[in-house]
């Protein structure tokens, strides 16, 4: 039996009673997982709340649409901007439409918008989410805490526009565990990609390529912020060693990736052209697009890196070589902002209030006369112009028409070349026929025929053309008084417009 006096002297671990809770160390992992779990809650919530929407929306898998939305936003996160609101809605529509093909398109759009707006959480002032979870503190006291997070955030773009960006929480939890070293992860992904392509496993290759692109985006984003810091204060960064090293490293990286990705591009192009079966071909074509996008991002990155040096010198001139002033000023950032931010808000608010009270200057109070007040109250409110000011009529000056051929000539040439698809003709015959109507016309016909020797297949595919003019050289010499060269066979090819359209919508 221990007397009460003993307990005071006893070592803490011997004091009676079970510990109230596992220590904070064990709790930390739990709270991390709780927070990760919380990030998925808004997605489940969508499926729960769809029942409350006016209308029958249970056929739609909202969480799936939401994940797709986050994927799309992540993919469109660019160097300067994020994804455009409308663009994301448009990209979501095929998936939404596929879930309920018989419903009207307006409803599909409504669903896509609803999901996107809920991911931003438009209704709340923070435009974010809050989850409450509990932890045990170091003193063993159970504390409920608020965890605030966002999935998609809105960021300002050029000219006051608003773009969407996926937050770190969204990328880490919902896109995939990306909190690994950027450079090595990128190398790993690309090595994997090359192996996959060489083995012809394109489905896996596409996944790997997309992952590589996520990393590329992340890398670019980081560099953008570093360059911005350089812009702000020359002394903020070590321009003797660290930054030049970093820029050199980044340039090396860009050059390396560029070489690497061009090699991949060549490989996939080969794979695309040699692939059998439309599915393989389509996948390879998509891969080409992804890798092209990566190359574009690297080029963008490189141009930013090249700007850094001149920028430093200009800023150095401004900041470092100015004559020093005798007075020393207050360091607003170092002495006010930086010490203020870590304080609890109820203390920090006293400092900001003091700054506000003394830093806003003065306002002359308005005094109102009764006579004016009556007038003001009786004046009807001004209609707000929603169309804005009237545009001045632009002063247009007609540019002189210096085209070699007239519109009529083009029309008759096109008419002449509008051949039946099963009856190709020789260029010589076409030239002779053209010459009969107009001595200038053969030049235009010859030009169009030469162009048709390399027909714009890609453009025709994208625009969904039904017919395409082509020209083939079979070795016959052209016998003509004005032109020399090969007597081309000019014909009209029919294209499978419906099939192409289906392909396009699948690919996008």
């Amino acid at each position, binding site marked *: 039996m221990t007397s009460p006096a003993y307990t005071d002297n006893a070592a803490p671990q011997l004091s009676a009673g079970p510990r109230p809770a596992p220590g904070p160390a064990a709790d930390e992992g739990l709270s991390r997982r709780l927070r990760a779990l919380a990030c998925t809650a808004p997605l489940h919530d969508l499926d729960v709340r769809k029942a409350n929407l006016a209308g029958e929306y249970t056929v739609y898998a909202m969480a799936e649409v939401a994940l797709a939305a986050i994927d799309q936003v992540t993919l469109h996160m660019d160097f300067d901007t994020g994804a455009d609101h409308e663009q994301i809605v448009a990209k979501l529509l095929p998936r939404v439409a596929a879930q309920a093909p018989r419903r009207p398109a307006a409803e599909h759009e409504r669903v896509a918008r609803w999901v996107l707006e809920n991911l931003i959480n438009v209704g709340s002032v923070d435009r974010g989410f809050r989850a409450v979870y509990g932890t045990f503190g170091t003193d063993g006291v159970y504390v409920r805490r608020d965890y605030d997070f966002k999935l998609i955030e809105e960021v300002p773009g050029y000219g006051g526009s608003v773009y969407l960006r996926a937050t770190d929480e969204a990328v880490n939890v919902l896109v995939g565990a990306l909190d690994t070293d950027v450079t090595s992860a990128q190398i790993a992904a690309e090595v994997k990609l090359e192996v996959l392509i060489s083995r012809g496993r394109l489905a896996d290759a596409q996944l790997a390529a997309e992952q590589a692109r996520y990393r590329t985006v992340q890398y670019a984003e980081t560099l953008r912020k570093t360059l911005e810091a350089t812009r702000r204060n020359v002394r903020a960064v070590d321009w003797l060693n660290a930054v030049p090293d970093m820029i050199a490293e980044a340039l090396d990286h860009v050059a390396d990736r560029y070489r690497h990705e061009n090699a991949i591009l060549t490989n996939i192009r080969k794979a695309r052209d040699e692939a059998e079966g439309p599915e393989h071909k389509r996948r390879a074509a998509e891969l080409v697009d992804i890798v092209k996008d990566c190359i574009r991002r690297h080029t963008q990155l490189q141009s930013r890196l090249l700007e850094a040096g001149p920028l430093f010198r200009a800023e150095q001139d401004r900041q470092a070589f100015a004559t020093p002033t005798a007075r020393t000023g*207050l360091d607003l950032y170092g002495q006010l902002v*930086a010490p*203020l931010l870590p304080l609890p808000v109820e203390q920090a608010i006293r400092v900001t209030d003091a700054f*506000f*009270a003394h830093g806003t200057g003065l306002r002359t109070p308005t005094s109102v006369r009764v006579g004016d007040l009556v007038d003001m109250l009786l004046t009807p409110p001004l209609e707000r112009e929603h169309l804005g000011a009237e545009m001045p009529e632009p002063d247009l000056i007609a540019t002189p028409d210096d085209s070699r051929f007239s519109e009529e000539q083009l029309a008759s040439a096109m008419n002449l070349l509008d051949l039946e698809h099963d009856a190709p003709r020789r260029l010589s015959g076409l030239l002779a026929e053209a010459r009969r109507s107009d001595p200038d016309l053969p030049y235009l016909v010859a030009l169009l025929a030469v162009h048709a020797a390399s027909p714009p297949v890609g453009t025709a595919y994208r625009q969904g053309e039904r017919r395409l003019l082509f020209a083939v050289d079979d070795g016959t010499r052209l016998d003509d008084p004005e032109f020399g060269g090969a007597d081309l066979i000019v014909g009209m090819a029919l294209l499978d417009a419906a099939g192409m359209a289906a392909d396009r919508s699948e690919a996008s």
Partner: protein
Amino acid sequence: MSDHRAEHTDAWSEPTAGYATARPATEGDAAHETAAPPAVTPADAADAARLVAFGLQPKLMPARDAEYAELLRRYREETPFARLADAVATGLGLVVLEVSTRAGMAVTAGEDSVFAVRMGDYARRASSDSADRFLHGLAHLAVAAMAFPRPEDLADDAYIGRITVNGIDAFVRQACHRLEERAAEHGDNTDPATDAPGLEAAWRIYARRSATGATKDARRLAGSTTGIVGKAVAFLTDSGFLQRTGDDAGGAFRTTARYQLQVRDMAGTAAMAELLELGVVPVTDGTATLLPPPDGDDLELAADAGLPFHA
């Protein structure tokens, strides 16, 4: 205090400066002889009050108004007139910051003056919501910190700061992000306790508010941080502290001489005093605090850790 400042400006040519120093001396002698203060006529009082009235129109440039410039010259040259104008300003509850051709009659509202700006009038939500109140105050502080990033800039009379709304938002956001990372490195749990929101760290309030938001009429979302910063710069522009120079990055502005005086002589010191009262003593030796990291630890390109802050 005001005419002492004014002597630094070199706008007044040598002959007048000599005249200005000669004149009070003779008057002083005269005062000794007659043992009576120089007479002030009601017309002088009217002119002094007129000068203060010009000072109450902060967007008015002395260079653009001949009468204003003439009154400034009188203030500069006639000490009794200067004292009179100072007295008028003080009586109205104003503080004279500087009287010069570049800043004009730079006056600002004293505490509890009718001219003072109150937070409740400034933003309606701010009076009820302490988070909003803090964000509005922080926005003004951040505008000043970005306008004068180095101590030298604040001290140098010739310096003109250039800021953009989005730039300020990004700056504060990154500073907050650094703190978030530092807290994570320490393994601190910064999520506030549900029943004590006042203990939430200040940076979290800013970090959690969204930067911008789409609105139905394509205006800036008032509650977003760019909306709050935008409100601050618009207000400062109305106070004659900033001038709009362009529309890029949410609106570009440059500072005026008045703003520098206001921040240097009024707001900065007041906020510092409050901070010291809280027991936070930021020690610096006057050099910039945005310094390179000690061992380049921060140039590691971890995701989102762009700005190497060292406070």
